[in-house]
């Protein structure tokens, strides 16, 4: 697209030709291209996680089924959870952070473009690292939560847990690097006039997500380090026979894990808070309350981790505290839900696909939220722990919440990303198939769970009354899968169609709709000046009509960062170093040293190359 325009652009210090083809993607530091890389990679992993789920559902479709062995079943549910959380929902959110945040705040790129590329490459390596385990027939099999002491050498002697441990450690580096980058970007790169309380709500929720990432990921990093020392170097942190405490893992994991839940949902909150006003033709109801309830949810998110551990017997004081604080989260969440309803209330609602998914999000998320409040009560939770009721709950918030929100975002921003509006009719097919398939799959799990069907068990005997609902769920899972087949077909069809999306197909309110679709490499030929919360609507009101289609400009004289392959080299070195630790009993220190040397080589070249 921009190649002709780039031909005119004088390159500042580098003086070399603009890379083309695949090399241009390997060396890119453009936040929009990195966003697309994040999105496509994460969507591939999402499809993998979905196929894993379908295999699980086939196994559970009938009693005493032998379609999967218990071992394979364990591997599949572990990889399904790990993939969906770390390789699908988080990086699809990151795709939107990358593509949308700089456009919404009126910036030309993120604060550290090469660090941004590094985050993507590390994420890719981490995802591959985890999934390479399939080729060795040793996929992780201890659940995405990896409870001690199941993960100890004694109970998991194979390399399965090692793939999980080092894979997550690599992915943590990607998340932390990206969080530092976006935290700085949002604070520092806002266009003139864009005060914090004028920021678009998606940028706000993403910003809060970065804070959660910054504070939650170090904790899982240490928890994994301790596990690594237990497994490789003979310490006993989680080993009771050596004086250690397996519950320490649960505490550390959930101190990370509960904020992680908000890391997964807050970006979706932000997305639908963008979509509802635009398709209701009304400003967001209670903007400030939305911002502060987001902050409040994030804050409380660090004080509720032990509600994942009521069954461990912490005693009445801890149970009471964690129960109360957990219920408290219903307040800011309720504020959000009522504000979403207030936004749509009395609006001139445009029934477009993004709006369908946004409304679907509200309905599904309320169901997931309500069962969440049920778990907050320890006596109720003791009945529900380790049953399908919990599986139903977190799929209603993670799929009914996060995925509905992310798909809404995909339909909403697709024209901005690719210059093509996705087909409306197929989009609505996608929505109805997804809504029906989702509910047919997951609603019966509430009933099965309350009837006592345990989770994480590879089969169930006939005659317990579980057969019908399980078969129904399996059928639902295939309906759900078919909705994504429709989505893929929609993408394919749109791809073959003309690239003719206008800059502002939805009558948007925020800055990303003021520039061509897709944006040119420098985003804004002139840095915009912001006077309010809905800058585009204000501009349209002043003109008493739509804005003229922005022209594509040559970009002569606009200063852009140089492309670089050193982020990739550094990411490779980091991954090699982690693999070196994993193979330390085979390679000695040499694997670590080689990987570390590559990483240092990458860092030094990165630091001393002209950044442009």
């Amino acid at each position, binding site marked *: 697209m921009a190649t002709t325009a780039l031909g005119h652009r004088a390159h*500042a*210090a580098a003086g070399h030709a603009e890379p083309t083809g695949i090399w241009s993607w390997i060396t890119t530091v453009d936040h929009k291209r990195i966003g697309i890389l994040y999105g496509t990679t994460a969507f591939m992993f999402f499809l993998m996680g979905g196929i894993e789920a379908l295999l699980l559902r086939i196994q559970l479709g009938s009693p005493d089924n032998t379609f999967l062995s218990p071992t394979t079943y364990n591997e599949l549910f572990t990889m399904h959870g790990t993939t969906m959380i770390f390789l699908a929902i988080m990086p699809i959110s990151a795709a939107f952070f990358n593509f949308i945040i700089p456009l919404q705040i009126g910036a030309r790129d993120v*604060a*550290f473009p090469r660090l941004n590329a590094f985050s993507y490459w590390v994420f890719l390596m981490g995802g591959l690292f985890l999934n390479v385990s399939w080729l060795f027939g040793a996929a992780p099999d201890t659940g995405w939560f990896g409870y001690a002491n199941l993960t100890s050498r004694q109970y998991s002697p194979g390399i399965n847990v090692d793939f999980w441990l080092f894979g997550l450690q690599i992915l943590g580096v990607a998340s*932390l690097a990206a*969080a*530092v*980058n976006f*935290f*700085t970007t949002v*604070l*520092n*790169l*806002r266009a003139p006039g*864009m005060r914090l309380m004028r920021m678009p709500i998606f940028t706000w929720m993403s910003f809060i997500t970065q804070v959660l990432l*910054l*504070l*939650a*990921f*170090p*904790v899982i*990093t*240490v*928890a994994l*380090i*301790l596990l690594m*020392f237990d497994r490789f*170097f*003979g*310490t*006993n*942190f989680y080993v009771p026979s*050596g*004086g*250690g*405490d397996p519950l*320490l893992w649960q505490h*550390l994991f959930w101190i990370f894990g509960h904020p992680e839940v908000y890391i997964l949902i807050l970006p979706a909150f932000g997305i639908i808070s963008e979509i509802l006003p635009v398709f209701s033709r009304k400003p967001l109801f209670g903007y400030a309350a939305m911002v502060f309830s987001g902050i409040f949810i994030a804050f409380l998110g660090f004080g509720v981790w032990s509600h994942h551990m009521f069954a461990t017997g912490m005693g009445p004081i801890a149970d009471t505290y964690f129960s109360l604080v957990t219920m408290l989260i219903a307040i800011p969440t309720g504020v959000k839900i009522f504000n979403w309803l207030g936004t749509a209330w009395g609006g001139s609602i445009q029934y477009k696909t993004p709006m369908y998914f946004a409304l679907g999000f509200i309905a599904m998320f309320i169901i997931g939220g309500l069962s969440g409040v049920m778990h907050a009560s320890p006596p109720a939770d003791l009945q529900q722990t380790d049953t399908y009721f919990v599986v139903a709950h977190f799929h209603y918030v993670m799929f009914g919440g996060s995925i509905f929100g992310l798909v809404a975002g995909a339909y909403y921003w697709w024209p901005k990303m690719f210059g093509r509006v996705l087909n409306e009719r197929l989009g609505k097919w996608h929505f109805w198939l997804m809504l029906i398939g989702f509910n047919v799959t997951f609603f019966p799990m509430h009933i099965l769970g309350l009837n006592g069907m345990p989770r994480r068990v590879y089969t169930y005997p006939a005659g317990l009354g579980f057969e019908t609902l399980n078969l129904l769920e399996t059928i639902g899972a295939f309906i759900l899968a078919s909705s994504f087949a429709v989505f893929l077909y929609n993408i394919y069809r749109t791809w073959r169609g003309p690239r003719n999306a206008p800059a502002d197909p939805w009558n948007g309110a925020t800055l990303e709709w003021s520039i061509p679709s897709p944006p040119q490499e420098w985003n804004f030929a002139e840095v915009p000046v912001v006077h309010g919360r809905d800058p585009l609507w204000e501009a349209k009101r002043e003109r008493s009509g739509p804005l003229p289609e922005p022209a594509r400009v040559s970009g002569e*004289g606009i*200063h852009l960062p140089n492309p670089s392959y050193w982020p990739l080299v550094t990411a490779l070195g980091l991954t090699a170093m982690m693999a070196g630790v994993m193979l330390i009993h085979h390679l000695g220190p040499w694997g670590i040293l080689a990987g570390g040397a590559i990483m240092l080589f990458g860092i*030094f070249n990165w630091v001393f190359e002209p950044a442009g």
Partner: protein
Amino acid sequence: MSDHAAHAAAAHPDTATGIDSRKLAIWTFIGSECLFFATLISNYLVHKETWLTGPGPFPHEAWTSPAGKVFEPIIEIPLVTLGTALLLFSSLFVVLALANAQRGNRRGLLLWLGCTLLCGLFFVGMQVYEFTHFVHKGLTLKTNLFGGSFFVLTGFHGTHVSIGVLWLFTLWILAWRGKLTADKSLNLEIAALYWHFVDVVWVVIFPVVYLIK
């Protein structure tokens, strides 16, 4: 924008907060690192009550093995106090180095940055000696939970110090070649922020591990 103008813009950050992005990023990173060390220190404290049942040696208590072998308290406070003092002084030295860098005084910069480096190197050397000494006295990662949490906590702190030494040494070489000029003193300021943080963490670790029984 010409190259010259680009450099001028870099020297006077035109950001929404007025803070240079790299400086804001290192502060952000430091905030994240606080949780990293908080978790490691918590891990040490959590095990503090339970490790006394296991085999010795222990930091502050003598221990007699069932076979009758006596292990004296293993911690050597004087040596580590010296290391701690030098690490704290190195924070002062790096401030002096930065002041010289900002004034464009290359000799002062080289001197004080060199002092910082020597202190850092002494600290790392002290830790290497201490670790070796402990292993000779029979304390390894595997011996007991004190060994495990001690080596992991101080080891990760030592790794941070070593990275700081490598970072500051790179800057010292640049200064020596005359490339760390006044307009680039921010490069040193960012490294110094990291260095101060590593010091401050030690200010917490030192009493927790060495002084509190």
